[in-house]
């Protein structure tokens, strides 16, 4: 069997159901692969792990991956199971926010650690400064939970449709009390949760072959998960070493995730890629990437995997 190590970008949860399903259902084994899934965490930068040789393939958001590429870690997108972005801002309705223009003078919680790029380029497209002040927004570096909103330390916070938003609702807040801005709807969506490998490895046909099999099996896992959300959530729970997650939460997450993966067969849609790059390059004075990236994706692997 050939070994493959996958570096997740977050802790074990239904966001990564496809991979756990593929492992659990033996799809990887069918492809003669021995796959290790490494959970991530708030301080693990997957591109760093990849650069250090700690994993063969990583999941990442495209802004972060492209930024890493500019920083001298040449990562290449080989597959894109997520078609749609799940990122959004969730605000208190009573804070007086109706359009993005109303963000001025408000406090907004943002995830950093490479996840700030979509927000920053959106704001610079709107021409809203992010350094506090009267008509700018005050940015908080929010930890990965929803307390800043519930405690009203922030007027808006970053949430994912499939996770944090549900947590806000679970806390007892009504949907009518909130107003949400999906990046997808604002035309600033960037691609999330793609698979990336190091460029130099793609010169090795054996590696490419392994990735082809890996992507094929993973996509099989994703499609199974979309169809069987409850069982998929169960599989994820079995793989969660902390034992801290609840079933209800994971089932709902799986249901929401299925909406994001629905439009993709795993191959990167070049139009989506170009939209992402345009969003990032349009980042005003401090763009996330300074020039059009080259060779940041390859369709070779999905082409082989999906035919």
């Amino acid at each position, binding site marked *: 069997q050939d070994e493959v190590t996958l570096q997740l970008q977050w802790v074990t949860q239904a966001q990564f159901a496809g991979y756990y399903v593929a492992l659990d259902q033996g799809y990887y084994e069918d492809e003669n692969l021995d796959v290790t899934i490494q959970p991530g965490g708030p301080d693990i930068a997957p*591109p760093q792990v990849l*650069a250090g040789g700690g994993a063969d393939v990583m999941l990442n958001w495209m802004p972060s991956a492209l930024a*890493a590429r500019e920083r*001298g870690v040449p990562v290449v997108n080989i597959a894109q199971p997520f078609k749609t972005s799940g990122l959004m801002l969730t605000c208190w309705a009573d804070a007086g926010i109706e359009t993005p223009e109303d963000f001025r003078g408000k406090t907004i919680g943002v995830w*950093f650690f490479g996840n700030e790029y979509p927000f920053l380029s959106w704001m610079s497209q709107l021409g809203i400064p992010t350094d506090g002040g009267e008509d700018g927004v*005050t940015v*908080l*570096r929010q*930890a990965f939970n929803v307390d800043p909103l519930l405690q009203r*330390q922030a007027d808006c916070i970053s949430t994912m449709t499939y996770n944090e938003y549900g947590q806000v609702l679970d806390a007892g807040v009504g949907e009518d009390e909130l107003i949400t801005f999906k990046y997808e709807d604002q035309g600033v969506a960037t691609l999330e949760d793609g698979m990336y490998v190091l460029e130099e490895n793609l010169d090795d046909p054996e590696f490419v072959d392994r990735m082809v099999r890996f992507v094929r099996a993973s996509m099989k896992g994703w499609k199974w998960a979309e169809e069987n959300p409850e069982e998929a959530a169960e599989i994820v729970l079995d793989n969660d070493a902390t034992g801290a997650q609840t079933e209800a939460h994971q089932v709902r997450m799986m249901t929401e995730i299925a909406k994001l993966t629905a439009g993709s067969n795993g191959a990167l849609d070049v139009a989506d890629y170009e939209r992402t790059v345009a969003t990032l390059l349009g980042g005003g004075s401090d763009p996330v990437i300074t020039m059009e990236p080259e060779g940041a994706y390859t369709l070779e692997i999905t082409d082989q995997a999906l035919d």
Partner: protein
Amino acid sequence: MNFAVIFAALMIWFGGWWMNARLARIRGGRGAGALAPILFGVTVLVLWELLVRGLGVPGAILPPPSAIGQAFAANLPTLWADFVQTFVKGALSGYVIGCSVAFAMALAVDRSDFLKRGLLPVGNFMAALPIIGMAPIFVMWFGFGWQSKAAVVAVMCFFPMLVNTVQGLAAADRMQADLMRTYAASPLQTLMKLKLPAAGPFIFNGLKICTTLALIGAIVAEFFGSPTLGMGFRISTQVGRLALDMVWAVILVAALAGSAFYGVVTLLERAATFWHPSQRGR
């Protein structure tokens, strides 16, 4: 190639060591005292540079010292702002609050045997509590600003300081205390003229332990939420951007600030407890 690099590294290491051994044999002399650790530090830096470059370690894993130096020089204003936010506002204020509350508490504990019996064991238990675990809770309670960092620092400093001060206030030996009794000294006189001076070395021990805790606490707390500046914020976001040279520049600031803080308290200690044998000897 790699072999040559490692060989060169070994040579440099032994060279530095040999020089230091020579230095150590030169007795006395304040200059020599400072030179040895500097030489050691320089040896380590040269080794680091050599190994990172020679073995081709990616900059995203470990940058060479020269790159760190450049990042440091190029980002002085940012680093200064981060330093003020984390060290001056977060760590220092928390340090002052935690240490002074603990000190006041220790005075109360010293006056009451009941409190001493009850509070000290509980205090010792709480001191064993991994306070960093409280950081997310404090960010929730006290907000994203420096106040939550100061709170973490204050709590981290509280117990070491309390335990040391209480121990110190009981440090006066029996004869010294009896002497005060023969003078029929008031409790306040006894405190000012006997207990506090005798507690000096212990109090400073607590203060020294707290200097290292303060910086660590303030930085750690920033990992659980912060405004868009501060040393912890900088480290965490720059790791996410793979700007490791900048990360190490911040670590450098932390080490410099921490060592300086420790050094200042040590100097104060030397001035205030000059009479103690540990300050006189050798």
